[in-house]
């Protein structure tokens, strides 16, 4: 079984170039038994990136994954506040390039209608759509989405595949929010390795909708892999979460690009 990590970043990682940073990540991935990384966003982040910054971030990811085509996949970073620039990036990086997914962060809450053209184009291209979400008792950022926002979007696009980033952070609430929506999957990455998260995700969503991701460099492979390795689940369920589910979701677009899965 090969572990596929849904959620990796170039920020917070040593190295002066995207290639060096991904190389560094892969050294640790090798040590931890992780085979493939999905990489998104650039070396320095912006909450509300300009079209120029989007292109710069995506260029960095393209450089990184082209250096390690057997080990890494790219997701294109978009900003719904810049519709045409985002559509252009989708076409450049996914239709005409090697990327296989979309990353949406905190520029705008994702229940907004401004997401619709981006989601529709991503669906046409077969790209997996990863939306950061969090429910913070301390208060969300102005453009930060909740799982409930994502559900509103997913209901408008029932044939697109979405990932609920961080399972909503407050996962006991986030998993409840998405459970009735089969086109929304749970990303385990990015929060503390709080025991019970993975068991609840499987119990509420079914194992097929649960995906391992690390949120590395902000987190460690160790703390995030522990959410699966340490869970009270069958070996078959762990294999599904660690790689098989993501492989199934990405296979159509990867195969269309000639990548063997």
């Amino acid at each position, binding site marked *: 079984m090969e572990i596929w990590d849904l959620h990796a970043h170039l920020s917070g990682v040593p190295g002066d170039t995207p290639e060096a940073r991904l190389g560094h990540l892969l050294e640790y991935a090798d040590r931890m038994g992780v085979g493939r990384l999905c990489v998104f966003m650039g070396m320095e982040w912006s909450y509300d990136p300009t079209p120029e910054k989007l292109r710069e971030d995506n260029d960095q990811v393209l450089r990184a994954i082209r250096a390690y085509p057997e080990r890494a996949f790219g997701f294109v970073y978009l900003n719904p506040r810049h519709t045409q620039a985002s559509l252009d990036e989708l076409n450049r990086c996914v239709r005409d390039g090697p990327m296989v997914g979309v990353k949406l962060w905190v520029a705008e809450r994702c229940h907004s209608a401004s997401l619709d053209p981006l989601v529709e184009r991503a669906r046409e291209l077969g790209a997996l759509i990863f939306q950061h979400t969090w429910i913070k008792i301390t208060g969300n950022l102005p453009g930060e989405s909740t799982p409930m926002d994502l559900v509103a979007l997913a209901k408008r696009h029932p044939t697109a595949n979405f990932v609920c980033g961080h399972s909503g952070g407050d996962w006991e609430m986030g998993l409840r929010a998405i459970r009735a929506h089969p086109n929304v999957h749970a990303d385990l990455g990015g929060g503390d390795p709080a025991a019970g998260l993975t068991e609840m995700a499987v119990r509420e969503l079914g194992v097929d909708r649960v995906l391992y991701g690390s949120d590395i460099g902000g987190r*460690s492979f160790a703390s995030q892999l522990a959410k699966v*390795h340490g869970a009270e689940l069958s070996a078959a369920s762990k294999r599904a979460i660690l790689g098989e589910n993501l492989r199934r979701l990405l296979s159509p677009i990867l195969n269309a690009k000639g990548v063997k899965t």
Partner: protein
Amino acid sequence: MNRRDFLAGTMTTALAASAMTPQARGRAAPKAGGPLVDVNVTLGQWPTRRLPLDSAERLARKLREHGVQQAWAGTFDGLLHKDLGTANARLAETCRRVGGGLFKARGSVDPTRPDWEDEVRRCVDVHRMRGIRLHPNYHGYRLDHPAMGALLKVAAAARLIVEIAVVMEDERMMHPLMRVEPVDTAPLPDLIRAVPGSRVVLLNALRTVRAKPLLELMATGSVWVEVSMIEGLGGIRAILDQVPRDRLLFGSHAPLFYFESAWLKLVESSLADRELESIRWKAVQALD
């Protein structure tokens, strides 16, 4: 193959095995590396959620599977219960009954409550504890409270290790009726210098206590920290730039955290043999 490679290889095998059968997982669990002492586990039930390993028996089984030979155990009852004497007695009884000597009880003490000194006396004289655990944020006091100095003196006189839990969970996802700030450790260096013989272990500290405040604590020579909340790529390796090897202990924060998180950090960071040994057991041996 040196010993480090062997350890990493063994643990990585165990990683892969965790998606296999329980029998295979058991065979792959690390047997090498000497003893493993976990200074940060808690027994009982977390107030807002049932945890997969919140029975002492199941937690003991998990710890034993991973080679833990000793686990310093507080009680979740120590967070919110007013009658800490009874909570500590229950903890001590569980530690005697379960785990075959695995658990070493750490009673909860709140130095702002009436007659707290008798709580400490019971921990030492009745329950034979070697350490106590403080939850200043859940008990509603800061470390510059006058009672803290008195407590450190009593603890030093009794040769008790004082554990301070800096946080228990991510502030962003706390229950709305159970929100607390991380403990501010700024007053601690001066307090410790004023009480020779103090030995303080900070639990769950290394997410919020970093850089200069951490260096100031280390400069006292009387503070230890543990790995449970270290994050980032190869986090233990990075923290060893700030924390002397003999001040860094193994702590899992189980069962609130998956035990494997701390355990796998030993694999993720490329550690020399002497560093691994120190974190696993040697540093705590010198402390205890």
